[in-house]
């Protein structure tokens, strides 16, 4: 595949995904594209950080005064 030509016409699919005739085109580099989607999907959740319930839960686990006195 030739790279770097400034006037290189775009091949069939743009790098960004779009829909044509109901078919999602994801660009030529499949592995990279799938990897990007996977990470995007994953980071949607990861970017939410740690919900309070887990902070609280782990704090309770860590508190020795709570040992054996679970509600």
């Amino acid at each position, binding site marked *: *595949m030739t790279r770097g030509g400034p006037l290189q016409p775009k091949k069939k699919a743009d790098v960004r*995904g779009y829909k044509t005739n109901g078919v*999602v085109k*994801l660009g030529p580099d*499949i592995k990279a594209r*799938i990897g990007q989607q996977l990470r995007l*999907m994953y980071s949607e959740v*990861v970017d939410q950080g740690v919900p309070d319930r887990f902070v609280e839960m782990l704090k309770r*686990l860590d508190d020795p005064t709570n040992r054996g006195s679970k509600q």
Partner: protein
Amino acid sequence: MSQRNDVRDVMLAAVPSLRAFAISLCGNVDRADDLVQETLLRAWANLNSFQPGTNMSAWLFTILRNLFRSEYRKRRHEVEDVDGSYADSLASLPDQNSRLELGEFRKALNLLPPDQRESLILVGASGFSYEEAAQICGCAVGTIKSRVNRARTRLAEILSIDGASDFGPDRETRAVVNSS
């Protein structure tokens, strides 16, 4: 016990990624969070079985996966929430195109056999090596590699991704993709 405090910090740091993995497994945020919580409790109760110096994140993922597996067997007939509460509960993405595209991708991902899906996610999203993923799934490294390859090929097929010739050695699949 400062050692326990360190462990607590490591666990806390692993929570976001554990949640992402759990959601990808069960497709439902509430169930995923319960799964993560159970994982942390289980891990805490079994800290003595953790080998110091090994990857704690991989250990936690292993526990989560095993918990999910045992629960999944019980709930096999339940329909997964592919694009319902999970999608609704997520913060909106910067632009609508990527959101639409991601929706398609998520649906395609859910069509994969669970073994392939989890292998692809562990390697492609969670950032584990093939060796770590093999350890988490309790199988050979070669098995993970082949699952990941099949998962990618199948995704390309489902999504009719262009440029299939760039991808993989699987000629039959390529022929199918090209002729459709």
